């Protein structure tokens, strides 16, 4: 076998490894029900759930719990997903500052027992500048590491 053939095979192998790993690492958008099912099946992959904050009749947000004087790293809220399932979400980091304003929340994490444990929050807040447009901000619980 010629050197170039070996080389070509190695390159193709790495490329396949990259594609497989991308497919393996890629997360997906699911609902809370699907997330609960995944957790039940022992699949602890992190997933994305899109939802809205639960609001009462007066438009007040319900189910927020954050007491920094007790624990600055514990924040709980209630999210309603696209199938209208209501779910308690726990975020072990300070409450994102613009949380109350958000129209749409994407939580990234996994179901744990009675709640959804989330590591990362994407908030879509209404833009004051472009009507009907939303702006995204990102919040993460853990420190980024190499």
């Amino acid at each position, binding site marked *: 076998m010629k050197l170039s053939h070996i080389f070509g095979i190695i390159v193709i192998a790495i490329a396949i490894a*990259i594609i497989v790993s991308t497919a393996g*690492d*890629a997360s997906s958008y699911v609902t809370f029900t699907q997330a609960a099912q995944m957790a039940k099946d022992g699949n602890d992959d992190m997933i994305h759930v899109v939802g809205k904050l639960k609001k009462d009749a007066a438009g007040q947000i319900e189910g927020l719990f954050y007491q920094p004087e007790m*624990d*600055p790293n514990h924040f709980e809220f209630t999210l309603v997903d696209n199938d209208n399932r209501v779910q308690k979400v726990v975020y072990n*980091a300070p409450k994102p500052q613009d949380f109350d304003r958000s129209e749409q929340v994407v939580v990234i994490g996994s179901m*744990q027992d009675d709640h959804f444990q989330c590591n990362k929050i994407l908030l879509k807040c209404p833009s004051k500048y472009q009507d009907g447009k939303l702006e995204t901000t990102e919040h993460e619980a853990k420190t980024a590491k190499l």
Partner: protein
Amino acid sequence: MIHTTVGNIGHFFVILSFVTALVSTIAYLLVALSQRKADSAPVEFERAERLEYAEVTSAGAGRTSIPVSSKRPRTDKKTPSGKAAVAGKAGEPRNDWRMLARWAFYVHGVAVVGIVGALFYIVSNHYFEYHYAWSYSSKALPAEYIISSFWHGQEGSFLLWIFWNAVLGVILINTNRKWEAPMMMVFALVQAFLASMILGVVFGDTLKIGSSPFLLLREAMPDAPIFATDPLFVPEDGKGMNPLLQNYWMVIHPPTLFLGFALTLVPFAYCMAGLWRNQPLEWIRPALPWTLLGAMILGVGIMMGGYWAYETLNFGGYWNWDPVENAVYVPWLIMVAALHTMLIAKRSSTGLKTAIILTIAQFILILYSTFLTRSGILGNASVHSFTDLGLSGQLLVYLFAFIILSVFLAARKWKLIPSDEQETSVYTKEFWLFIGATVLCLAGFQVIATTSIPVYNSILESFGKVSNLALPVDQIAHYNKFQIWFFAIIALLSGIGQYMWWRKVENRNWNALVTPAILTLLISAGLIAFGEVRNPVYMALLVASVFAIVANGTILLGVIRGNYRLSGGAVAHIGMALMLIGVLFSSGYSRVISLNNSGILISRSEDFTKNDNKENKENVLLWLNQSERMDQYQLTYRGQRIEARDVPGYFPRSWVQLIEGDFHGIALRDIDVNGKVYHKKGDTLALFPENIFYEVEYREPSGKIFTLYPRLQVNERMGVVLSPDISRKVGRDLYTYVATAPDPTAEDQWDKTETYSVALKDTFFLNDYVAILDDVVRTNDVDGTELGPNDAAVKAQVRVLDKNGEHILSPAFIIKDRLVGRRAETNEELGLRIQLNEIDPRTGKFTFAVNRKQRDYIVLKAFEKPLINVLWIGTFILVIGFLMATVRRYREFSKMRNKGMA
């Protein structure tokens, strides 16, 4: 009043620039067509040139010339040799076309400068009747940032790109002789596409070509009710620039990055011209210096963005693998790979083929990245992509037009590239450089494969399928697990490749590499032991980087003795290796020091005590003026500060009263900083009202004190943005930011009043504190009240104990002109307001009214980033290396050009 003239002039220039770009394209096409007819024949000329060319192979490397026969394009045989004689003169009759093309491009350049000028005039004169000025600037914007509001919007950044392209085009017309027509044809075509992006023409109801920066507000939002009542309405002020971008890096980062974008066009245009002219190798010489310069500028632009993120955003680093970052990182990798293959193209046809493919790819990838970031396709995936201006279709046309044109041209001319006669040996530089380029490409492929996930969803959706793929949850881990290895290999190859390049390894003898290898192992062992590197992956990267430094350093020492001009490659490689070491330590060994070890981990949640939550306890709570221990430091939060435009440093927020909806404030007291009074009480002063700085005092074990001012920005566009403050030391940075704080814009919320009646020396409980009424004394000094001879005043002295010591609160009780006055005292640290309400002489009891409020606090996060300066130093060295290589290759090109051969 609406100033329509300047907008009309601007729009005229936009159209002019578009038309002239088209004219120039067509005229250059005609010149190129006629040239090719003439050029395709000269067999003798070609041969002579090839011989010459082969003789001056890269300096220092051997002078073996290429066998002419194997390299000669096959077309030579087909062309009738009779035409050869016409070659020299064929260009002459077409000179008028050339003049037209050239002048069209010059006029295009002038028009672009005109557009820039008109837009700048609008923004700097605050013509808020224009959508662009209204959207991105305001009267509050400091003058130095007017320039950056220019590229705040999408149209402006396209304009910046067009501007650089025009500048480069004019330079290229004047610096090369043979390549002008076919190359400038590509240039002008790109310019036509780009100019169409800001054309702003609407056909019918649906077809929109470009988005003009010269739209009046009433044209941009015709449905706004105000224009129905008052068509001549001009807003008083603009919405202003995103304050996050009001940063010096944002003044220089976009122009640098877009110059990098523009420079990717130069090698692409040369490559197209080379293929067009049936000279698939010769384009490389003139293209090489520009590729080097482009890789340098694009790299610097990327690093500037990283540095801005490090200083401004709070994710704790300079690189977050955000799709927007990836979108420029990949073309840069491919550009670097392309330039390495250009170096071997002369002797290896595989190298030449790869060079052509990669040169095309790096330009196409820039277009693809433009599409990714500006079409809105990233949507949820990225925080800072542009919103969709409705140009995604146009961007796709642009992207596919160039893919099709370049692939078609390359495919047609592919047969011109001869095959290698024998397989490349492992003992040649060609082999090693090619592997290096391949690894760079694989690194780029890995990043783009993942970054494009939203694109796969869109493609599947357009076929009616539902796809719910999302980007990896832990993107950093996902990318790093590949990139670390790729870069470890690249570092190794950079060392081996240099040895091959300079012919140190010959006759299958690897001995030359033994010394650097031993040296590497010794140094790495020391670093691993000293730096406590335990992770085997990090060890691998560290060893590879050290090897790159040692090997390239050895080569550098050797080369410098001969001709320092040739050492650009070695210098650049050393810079890259240093960057890798800086990244490795600053990211891999970043250490959180704000661990919440106060013991107060009480929470209602059950899972709170679980182990995996421990790592989330990375924030500490600091109450105002109550010091806490954190790592080796004693930390104290000293209060909220604000910055004025003409006062150095920061001063307490309570010193000024902000004026609602304005950037001015009124001084509530004399504003003195470091003993100098900048404003008297009652003065109006210009502030940066959106920024609040939290003064955090760090006391080191030695007693030395330094202060950091992490920032909270009430950003109307993005909610609240938290920015760090960084204490820079030689070995490490201390990075600190406020994770959360009570809403600084909210009014104080006082609880309902509670009253206490106590006698002197009584102890009572205020809130959670023990308080003692020590004394009530007569006083003549009550701040703000003039006491006459018949007036009287007393002050109570209430001592309040908290865990850090005691506070004396002295509310006053005044009788003035037979009226009772009470002066309450507020203590922010305790969150208490106390007022002496009544004095009962019969019982000797004093009645106090007390209110409580939330005490001021911040939740702080801090970590150390070791050796981050090595990253910045490495970047700097990399730039020097690239510059040296650029200068060298440009001199080679100009020498050849002056001989009439390039």
